[in-house]
């Protein structure tokens, strides 16, 4: 990408990182689907053009500095995007290239010719489709042409193919023909020019390619230095039909290195095209490749591929007995689309027998319990309410006044309640707490275990003996249970419940965990409709660490819980101890971004439904992902987990005191 000619303009270079989002939106708008813009890896840089398009991606260089101004370099990025989305927009991706090439006796030769012709067609169509990009395109073509080798220095077969490429770049026909020693080029260019017609489609490119290939097939020896990038070998193997034309030693010749055109990419691996032809290529088991017919039908109908529905609407009750389950969509940020009915959420009722849990909490946190209750006592009804038709008030009720005058004049008794009074309204709040019950909440808090000597115990070790019981048996020391993250969460929620009860707010407590998309667990400790009872305390105490943290599905299910709540203020507070994670949360388990993006999407759905969300995370590294999941004002990272009850109280007060 960096040529000696271009290096002098480095001060006006444009970096991919600076314009990534702009180009991604640009591509999505024009292609009608999300295309993943990826950076070409540095090791590929010498041949970054070897492969730029795959399933739904466009590969671009880290920077472009070929031209004198930043505007022109940005234009070159645009042209690279436009050309590559051209494979989708102009129908190349719908064509069964695999079978087309495989049917040829010289598939690699046919491939080279086909893409020279197809790129010519796409660039010609680009001029028509995007007239505003013509100047950039001509500039980029001219630059690419200036860096090509002279065909007069090449053997006949590579020279003819190079001539086709240069023709597609706008080289003057007369100059090309003048340098041709085979006498075939004039006829080949005639054939190639046919795809510049407005009506030409990918089938015309295929037809022209076959015709040209037939003319060149017997020209020169089979492996005559025809440029063959390394990807060609891979293709031949994948095709299951090794192409004898290309021996390893013949690859990447100096002619081959010059074959590619930077902005066009190279379609050698053809993943996208195989996908269209129904050939499996992806290792992902997420969904089968769509049938070519279906895709074509979809395109011809001009359907919008980007989904606009909310996954919240996809709730479906399960039809079999057992815990109720619900299907929810999941947001796949790679493809910017919802995976329909992707996650099954099982709703479980938490049941426990530790009914004295709250007494234990009050005893252990007596000072804190008092503080929380006191803090909640300060919360006053959150809004003023205009009470009409009162006997006294701040202002006159105009409608009532008019009616009173009318009544008086018509001889009827009039009402004396003619004022409007501003009263504090009743609290009208519904809040749900969604607690992470993943395995990591089993983490023991440092220094939380205490050992107490039992009364009468001695430091002497019990002698070993034949008897299990006897005077020598020393009772084990009493060890206070080690406090874990989940325990602190439960304590905090218990204190909240205790205080909220006095406040009169409607509230619910849920936990979530799971093991894969087919088994997301949603545990109900207290639903909105449940009255606080001993059973609630038992259920709260029964919250235990379980498995993974598939947060998006849990949030969507919690969102559904608000559907029947009519409160003016709705709040969802999520308490977790780490980033969203599950073994199949995205195709790559190490890809944290998938879960983060799905959770961010779920939180967006929550906000869209008029519910205020807030994330509290007990994870010092929480800032890294929370700032990508939530708005800055909607999350809190707590370093000291024991501060959770205090912080929750403050958060709740803030969120509901609007």
């Amino acid at each position, binding site marked *: 990408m960096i040529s000696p000619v271009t290096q002098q303009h480095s001060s006006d270079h444009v970096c991919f990182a600076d314009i990534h*989002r*702009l*180009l991604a*939106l*640009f591509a*999505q*708008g*024009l*292609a*009608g*689907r999300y295309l993943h813009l990826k950076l070409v890896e540095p090791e590929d840089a010498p041949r970054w053009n070897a492969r730029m398009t795959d399933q739904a991606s466009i590969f671009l260089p880290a920077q472009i500095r070929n031209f004198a101004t930043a505007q022109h370099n940005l234009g070159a990025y*645009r042209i690279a995007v*436009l050309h590559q989305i051209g494979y989708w927009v102009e129908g190349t991706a719908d064509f069964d290239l695999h079978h087309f090439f495989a049917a040829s006796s010289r598939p690699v030769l046919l491939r080279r010719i086909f893409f020279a012709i197809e790129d010519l067609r796409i660039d010609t169509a680009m001029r028509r489709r*995007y*007239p*505003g*990009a013509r100047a950039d395109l001509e500039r980029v073509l001219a630059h690419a042409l200036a860096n090509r080798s002279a065909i007069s220095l090449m053997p006949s077969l590579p020279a003819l193919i190079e001539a086709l490429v240069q023709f597609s770049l706008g080289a003057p026909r007369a100059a090309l023909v003048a340098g041709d020693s085979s006498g075939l080029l004039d006829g080949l260019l005639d054939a190639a020019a046919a795809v510049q017609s407005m009506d030409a489609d990918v089938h015309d490119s295929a037809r022209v390619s076959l015709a040209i290939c037939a003319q060149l097939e017997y020209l020169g020896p089979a492996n005559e230095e025809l440029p063959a990038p390394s990807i060609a070998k891979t293709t031949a193997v994948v095709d299951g039909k090794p192409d004898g034309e290309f021996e390893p030693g013949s690859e990447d010749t100096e002619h081959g290195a010059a074959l590619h055109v930077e902005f066009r990419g190279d379609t050698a691996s053809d993943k996208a095209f195989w996908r269209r032809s129904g050939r499996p290529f992806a290792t992902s088991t997420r969904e089968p490749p769509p049938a070519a017919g279906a895709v074509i039908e979809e395109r011809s109908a*001009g359907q*919008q591929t*980007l989904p*606009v529905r909310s996954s919240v609407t996809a709730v479906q009750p399960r039809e079999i007995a057992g815990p109720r389950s619900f299907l929810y969509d999941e947001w796949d940020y790679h493809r*910017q689309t919802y995976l329909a009915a992707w996650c099954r959420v099982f709703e479980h009722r938490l049941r426990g027998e530790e009914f004295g849990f709250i007494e234990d909490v009050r005893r252990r946190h007596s000072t804190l319990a008092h503080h929380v209750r006191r803090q909640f006592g300060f919360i006053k009804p959150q809004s003023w309410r205009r009470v009409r038709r009162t006997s006294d008030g701040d202002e006159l009720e105009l*409608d009532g006044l*008019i*009616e009173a*005058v*009318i009544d008086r*004049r*018509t001889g009827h008794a009039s009402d004396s309640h003619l004022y409007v009074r501003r009263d504090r309204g009743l609290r009208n709040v519904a809040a749900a707490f969604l607690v992470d019950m993943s395995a990591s909440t089993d983490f023991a808090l440092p220094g939380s275990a205490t050992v107490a000597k039992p009364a009468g115990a001695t430091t002497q070790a019990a002698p070993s003996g034949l008897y299990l019981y006897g005077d020598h048996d020393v009772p084990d020391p009493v060890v206070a249970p080690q406090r874990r993250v989940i325990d602190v969460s439960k304590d905090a929620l218990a204190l909240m419940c205790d205080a909220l009860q006095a406040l009169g707010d409607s509230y619910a407590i849920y936990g979530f965990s799971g093991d894969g998309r087919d088994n997301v667990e949603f545990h109900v400790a207290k639903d909105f409709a449940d009255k606080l009872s001993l059973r609630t305390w038992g259920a709260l105490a029964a919250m235990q660490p379980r498995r993974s943290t598939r947060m998006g599905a849990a949030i969507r299910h919690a969102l559904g819980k608000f*559907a029947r709540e009519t409160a003016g203020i709705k709040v969802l507070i999520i308490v977790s101890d780490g980033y969203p994670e599950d073994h199949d949360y995205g195709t790559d388990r190490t890809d944290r971004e998938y879960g983060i993006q799905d959770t961010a999407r779920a939180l967006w759905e929550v906000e*869209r*439904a*008029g519910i205020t969300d807030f994330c509290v995370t007990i994870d010092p590294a929480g800032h890294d992902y929370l700032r990508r999941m939530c708005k800055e004002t909607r999350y809190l990272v707590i370093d000291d987990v024991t501060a959770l009850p205090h912080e929750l109280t403050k958060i709740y007060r803030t969120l509901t005191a609007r």
Partner: protein
Amino acid sequence: MQEPWYLPLADEVRLFEAAYEARLPVLLKGPTGCGKTRFIEHMAWRLYRQIDSPRRGLEVPLITVACHEDLSATDLVGRYLLSGDETVWMDGPLTRAVRSGAICYLDEVVEARKDTTVVVHSLTDHRRVLPIEKTGELLDAHPDFLLVISYNPGYQSVLKDLKPSTRQRFVSLDFSYPGIDIEATIIAHESGVDPALARRLAVVGEKVRNLREHGFEEGVSTRLLVYAAQLAAGGIEPRRACDVAIARAVTDDAEVQKSIAAIVDVLLP
């Protein structure tokens, strides 16, 4: 009264005429700026102003109410007013339409207070009556009266959805943004720009709608495309017209604005 120009997208004209013949209340659903209001104006003209219409004598065939959150049933039905030493009953727009036999169009009905939507219930079934509580009158609807409501399911929050008891009283006509050919025709007709530019703007609309998930759920409306065309017809450079009428109108996100500008840039000559 001139015929309001309307280009049918499908069979909505025929459906509306059939609904009118049966006096079935109609619900128009669709995104903002897709032509719902123009459609009802056009239908009012067809039903009340065509030469062979038996209803040509009606002075005001269409009474439109733009609903808002403070709109009450009283605002629709009417109220007593003081006039000198007298009290005078003043019909609200709904009552006027019910008496005269006009079409009453409640635009964005879910924005109105709940009591407003309930007051129309008795007008939308076989009874076709409007109870006026303050006068004690039970007003039979004029035989030509029709109630039409509209709402935009896209951006209304779940809190403002129509109640099933209201929704299920209406025949529902769905509207969406037209395809490129029809939209180009609309743009050219409404603005006077040449068909080529109109088509380019329609393509811009189609492409920009592909970005609707990025902060503007509605996409760009046909109305905005017409605005851009009208600016261009008035001598504004088309890219600048698209900048102010499309990119800056649909989003405040600077990067999305730039990407829309880039789309416009390559699509316009």
